[in-house]
């Protein structure tokens, strides 16, 4: 009899407590169906409460840029949440400046959907789609740069200068997936494929994945197009400066403008150290020879005797300084490492170019 009471009471208490926990979970974690009002009623979504805004939007095929996949380390997924978000979380704080905090900007990967939301999504994000692509071709351009041609599963529309996000798969010791951004180097008039340039970064998660584990014929997921790096119409010409893999968006921009017959002056400066770091040189030189308004100026800062280099010598900033005199009406388009971009901005500003017409990707 005693054994029965013992077993019954312990089981009873455990069961009651478990039921209490389940009830609390239903009560506290159940947010029901919440509606998301996008752009003042332009689009309305009904989603299950409890997930993050970023993932809920992705499930509804609206892709907000994100490099870290929701871990609050990249700060790219910013959206304005006008109503319905909880208090600002400590994980979001470091990424928002005073102006953003004032206009209700949040990190969408940190906002948990608990009730109806009112949000603002920039128009260009609606053009972003998910693509399941097949790697059609991999071409080696230099000792650490590969060019990938991805055949898309549906047509794409993008502006020259924009970028795609590549999704990696787990490999080796890397157990999670990441997204990394790469500028599109192909002409926007090609709608069924995109070309990306990937330069190997030591210890880089995505570049190591791409260089060591992706072969022709593999399936790779891309999202895009993203970015507000593209030539503005208001310019009378463009000073374009690129280093390393930064030549990618420039190639897209130039092919696009030449194809559309835009007659503006384009000066493309490409800086490298020795001849083996150059690529696309003959291709771009041919275009320059054929089109009077396109000028291609590659520069080597450490040309070796065997390079037999007859082109510009010295730093890319020196080449720009020497070759660009009158910047009236010219816009600046820069793509490369942060150090190179800073140095080029200094040179352009010294010549009189203002900040508002110098453009560069911030990723």
């Amino acid at each position, binding site marked *: 009899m005693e054994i029965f009471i013992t077993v019954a009471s312990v089981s009873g208490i455990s069961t009651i407590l478990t039921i209490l926990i389940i009830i609390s979970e239903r009560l506290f974690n159940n947010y029901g169906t919440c509606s998301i009002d996008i752009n003042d009623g332009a689009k309305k979504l009904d989603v299950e409460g409890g997930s993050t805004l970023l993932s809920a939007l992705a499930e509804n095929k609206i892709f907000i840029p994100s490099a870290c996949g929701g871990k609050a380390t990249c700060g790219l997924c910013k959206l304005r949440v006008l109503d319905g978000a909880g208090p600002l979380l400590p994980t979001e704080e470091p990424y928002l400046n005073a102006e953003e905090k004032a206009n209700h900007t949040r990190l969408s990967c940190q906002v948990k959907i608990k009730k109806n939301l009112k949000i603002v999504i920039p128009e260009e994000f609606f053009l972003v789609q998910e693509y399941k692509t097949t790697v059609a071709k991999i071409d080696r351009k230099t000792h650490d740069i590969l060019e990938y041609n991805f055949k898309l599963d549906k047509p794409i529309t993008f502006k020259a200068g924009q970028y795609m996000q590549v999704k990696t798969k787990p490999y080796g*010791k890397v157990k999670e997936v990441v997204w990394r951004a790469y500028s599109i180097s192909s002409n926007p008039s090609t709608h069924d494929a995109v070309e990306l340039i990937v330069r190997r970064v030591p*210890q880089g998660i995505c570049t190591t994945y791409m260089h060591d584990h992706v072969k022709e014929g593999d399936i790779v997921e891309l999202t895009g197009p993203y970015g507000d790096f593209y030539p503005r119409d208001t310019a009378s010409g463009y000073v374009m400066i690129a280093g*390393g893999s930064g030549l990618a968006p420039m190639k897209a921009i130039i092919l696009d403008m030449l194809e559309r017959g835009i007659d503006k002056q384009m000066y493309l400066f490409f800086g490298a150290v020795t001849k083996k770091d150059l690529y696309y040189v003959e291709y771009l030189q041919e275009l320059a020879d054929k089109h009077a308004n396109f000028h291609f100026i590659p520069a080597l800062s450490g040309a070796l005797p065997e390079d037999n280099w007859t082109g510009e010598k010295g730093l890319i900033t020196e080449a720009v300084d020497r070759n660009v005199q009158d910047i009236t009406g010219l816009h600046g388009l820069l793509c490369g*490492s942060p150090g190179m971009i800073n140095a080029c901005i200094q040179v352009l500003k010294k010549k009189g170019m203002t900040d508002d017409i110098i453009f560069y990707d911030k990723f």
Partner: protein
Amino acid sequence: MKQTANMLSIQEMMQAGKLTAEGFLGTDTRNLTEILLADQAVVNELGLTFKEIADKMQAITDIGLKMTEAVLPVNEEFAVQVDEYMGFIPCPFADNYQAAKRNTLLKNRRTGAAVHWSDLNIHMIREHGFFEGVGSYFRLDPAYLISFLK
């Protein structure tokens, strides 16, 4: 030894595949707090501060920045080369520091010995006293590193 939850979450961020391909802890069997304490002891014994070490590293990187991807002399004994890549890498200590992807290679011209570091290394040494785990690609043994910075 048990770590605070804060250290545990930072140690999580340092695993392979979170921010870099192989992570920041290499094949080290010690936990983050033990690594920090051990390296701090070495630095204290050599009579330097983290700030002094980081400043010297930054000065050498600045010399190399005058012309990236080229070998530049630091003095009669050492030469430096700085390589740069596009993009940023966040600091695993969750202090919202975004480091440029910049690698500095410092070589002793006479002996051929070399040491390399990233911009993130400089920041992590200066602010957190972190030299990465043994076996990590960017591990800097404090005594070895300091021998190059005289």
